[in-house]
């Protein structure tokens, strides 16, 4: 098992290095720079600033210097927030984003899993068609449409929930979590339905019924585990999608998370900030993919044995 984990972590290094390299040069290719603005800056001031942030060095040297800093865990100073480092800014934005992501994942797994399992128990009936149709709509509807619609309905029309904010008014975390989690709930619903249908047609389900177990025990004890393995394997990619989606949701609901820093950094050509968040998020995504793979393998005794030996 450990060899498998360590091997996967080693594989992640070139992946993250490639992400850094591509991002580093891409942001430089983009027109404009961090100190360009409507007001002309005095050339001497601009030169001094560029020298301070090492922007006067040749690109190759800048790249190597950045890698050197990164190796020590330093993401560098932010260009747009003078006096604050990217590490500090990420630390400031992370809690809100992490919380939002966790709730959204919870929404996705609980709602999606439940809908999928319920639908699979009576295929091709109303119990199947209704949740699956809703799921289809969920997949088709983009977050930037769903968010405002939910706000309109629950925030403005019914006045049940706050329309924006994060942790200020009770209940203000519900709408953002729902908005972000909805699409993934829909995917998970379809995955778990397919997984459960497959498992419920297996011979060992018939064996369980022949033992006299009531149907709910057949489902919970014998079918769920096998049926939900595809969902577990999907959690890693889902987490990546949630992070990407959180930028939109944070903007809609005015949440002080990482996403807004990231988007603003891109507009401002805040090179270190863009790079820093990208490196941080890609590392997280790699870790979560690994985690969901390990979990899926652990749920399957056959794979567990294989990795155990390897």
């Amino acid at each position, binding site marked *: 098992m450990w060899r498998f984990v360590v091997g996967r972590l080693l594989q992640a290094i070139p992946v993250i290095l490639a992400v850094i390299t591509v991002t580093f040069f891409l942001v430089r290719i983009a027109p404009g720079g961090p100190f360009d603005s409507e007001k002309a800056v005095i050339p001497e001031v601009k030169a001094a600033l560029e020298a301070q942030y090492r922007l006067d060095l040749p690109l190759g040297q800048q790249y190597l210097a950045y890698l050197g800093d990164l190796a020590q865990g330093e993401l560098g100073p932010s260009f747009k927030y003078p006096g604050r480092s990217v590490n500090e800014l990420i630390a400031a934005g992370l809690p809100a984003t992490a919380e939002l992501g966790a709730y959204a994942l919870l929404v996705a797994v609980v709602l999606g899993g439940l809908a999928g399992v319920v639908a699979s128990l009576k295929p091709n009936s109303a119990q199947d068609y209704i949740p699956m149709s809703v799921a289809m709509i969920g997949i088709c509807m983009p977050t930037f449409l769903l968010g405002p619609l939910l706000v309109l309905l629950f925030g403005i029309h019914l006045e049940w929930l706050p329309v924006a904010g994060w942790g200020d008014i009770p209940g203000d975390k519900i709408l953002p979590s729902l908005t972000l989690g909805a699409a993934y709930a829909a995917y998970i619903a379809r995955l778990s339905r397919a997984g459960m249908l497959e498992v419920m047609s297996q*011979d060992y389900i018939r064996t369980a*019924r022949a033992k*006299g177990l009531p149907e709910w025990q057949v489902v919970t004890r014998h079918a769920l585990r096998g049926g939900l393995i595809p969902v577990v394997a999907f959690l890693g990619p889902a987490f990546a999608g949630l992070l990407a989606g959180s930028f939109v949701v944070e903007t809609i609901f005015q949440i002080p998370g990482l996403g807004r820093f990231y988007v603003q950094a891109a507009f401002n050509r805040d090179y270190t900030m863009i790079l820093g968040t990208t490196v941080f998020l890609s590392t997280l995504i790699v870790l979560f993919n690994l985690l969901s793979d390990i979990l899926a393998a652990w749920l399957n005794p056959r794979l567990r044995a294989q990795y155990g030996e390897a």
Partner: protein
Amino acid sequence: MPLLSVRDLQVDFTTRNGRVTAVNRIGFDVEAGKITAIIGESGSGKSVACYSLLGLLPVPPASIESGSALFDGRDLLQLSERELRQIRGRDIAMIFQDPMTCLNPYMTVGNQLMEPLLYHRKVTRQQARARALELLAEVGLRDPESTIDQYPHQFSGGMRQRVMIAMALINEPKLLIADEPTTALDVTIQAQILGLIAELQRKRDIGVIFISHDLSVVADIADEIVVMEKGHVVERGDRQAIFEAAEHPYTQKLLAAIPAGSKAPGEVPRDDLIQVRNLCTWFSQGRGAEPLRAVDDVSFTIQRGEVLGLVGESGSGKSTIGRSLLRLVPVTRGEVLFDGTDVTSLQGTALKQMRRRMQMIFQDPYASLNPRMSVYDTLAEPLLLHGIESRKTVEQGVLRLMDDVGLARAFVRKYPHEFSGGQRQRIAIGRALATRPEFVVADEPVSALDVTIQAQILELMLELGREYGLTMLFVSHDLAVVRHIADRILVLYKGRVVEQGTGDALFNSPREEYTRQLLQAIPGRGLL
């Protein structure tokens, strides 16, 4: 009074093509302390009848139209799902056909085994575990203490079937329904499992329903036999009456289908088409580990026009030999001379040309045919690929092949799922013969088929062998089947040839202990 008394049972299925009566007003009795066998081909309704008694059929599409099934003074067909559940797994238990798929791969064997006990009786987990250990020992598992917490994939097929039996018996049921419990197993394992079921039944004095397509399987253990055909019970009687004085033509057909006797001796010896010298096929088992010696230093020859039988259990290396000859697996060492050419070193075009002369028929006609290709596509592909027919003449070629393997020409545009197992195997044989090969490897071509179909396919292969002048390597775990078709037989054990000779020689005077075991394992050998 019988333990179970079924009367007037009718089960219908609603299908896309209308209603089908799967079980048509049948009746039979099962006595306590006796084994009642229900025999019939696939689709005869034998399994459906038993599943319907326990409410294990999906409703819809199934519906029980009429009948009664008195068990212990109660009519099973009138019970509510709740009441029936109390009986399932406690008073009536089941064993299924395929032990590979019937155990839950995500649960330890012990947890699955204890489940019926914990659900139906008031026992603690410790008590249940102790009982499970006792039963595992009783069904012949070595070292239950250490295997009880393992997962099904760590067990062989025979061991899993023993676990299934233990699971069925853990509540000491009054009736055991065994649905083709040995069909997916090798002959030697089958003999062990049959012996075990009979022994446990005698010891507990319970009633058993034994469902099978093969009369010979129940020849040694059944007390009563019920023969079903197309939803009807066509004949009933005790074992002796059925085997010695069967009246119904269908029963007689089933009896005739049991492979018996050996092939008439061939003509004068001809030259060797295939010479295998010191063949070794080893598989790597990862770094540092000893390689698996699937085939270890095997030498033999096959004469032109001869059918050579290769017999052994799972893991004996018999399939690997067949694959090695066709270069479907890499050969580790040794020579395979085909008509004087060593095929182990052929590459590219030479290999492709050689492949045209050698073909393979696989075991499972369900898995080996591409479900998205019609019969026409399947048969036309090799004809065109090897340039045997041109685009203009390919249709005629396909139809000729269909005639040869006994498929109606009208089926030419149909897809594999529209055919029965026997028909599919005919398609597979047609595909193998399309290139007009000189040599065919048939890897367990009949072991997935019902006995009656098996007999037809064996007949077809013998006939085509003569017609095409084929040389054949016939691989099977079943000595009786091989004897029926092969001129000469090699017995294989753990990758090595332990004995060879004509079928009669092996049957009448086996020299090796292992061959004797294989002979002992043939079901109903008294009939042969």
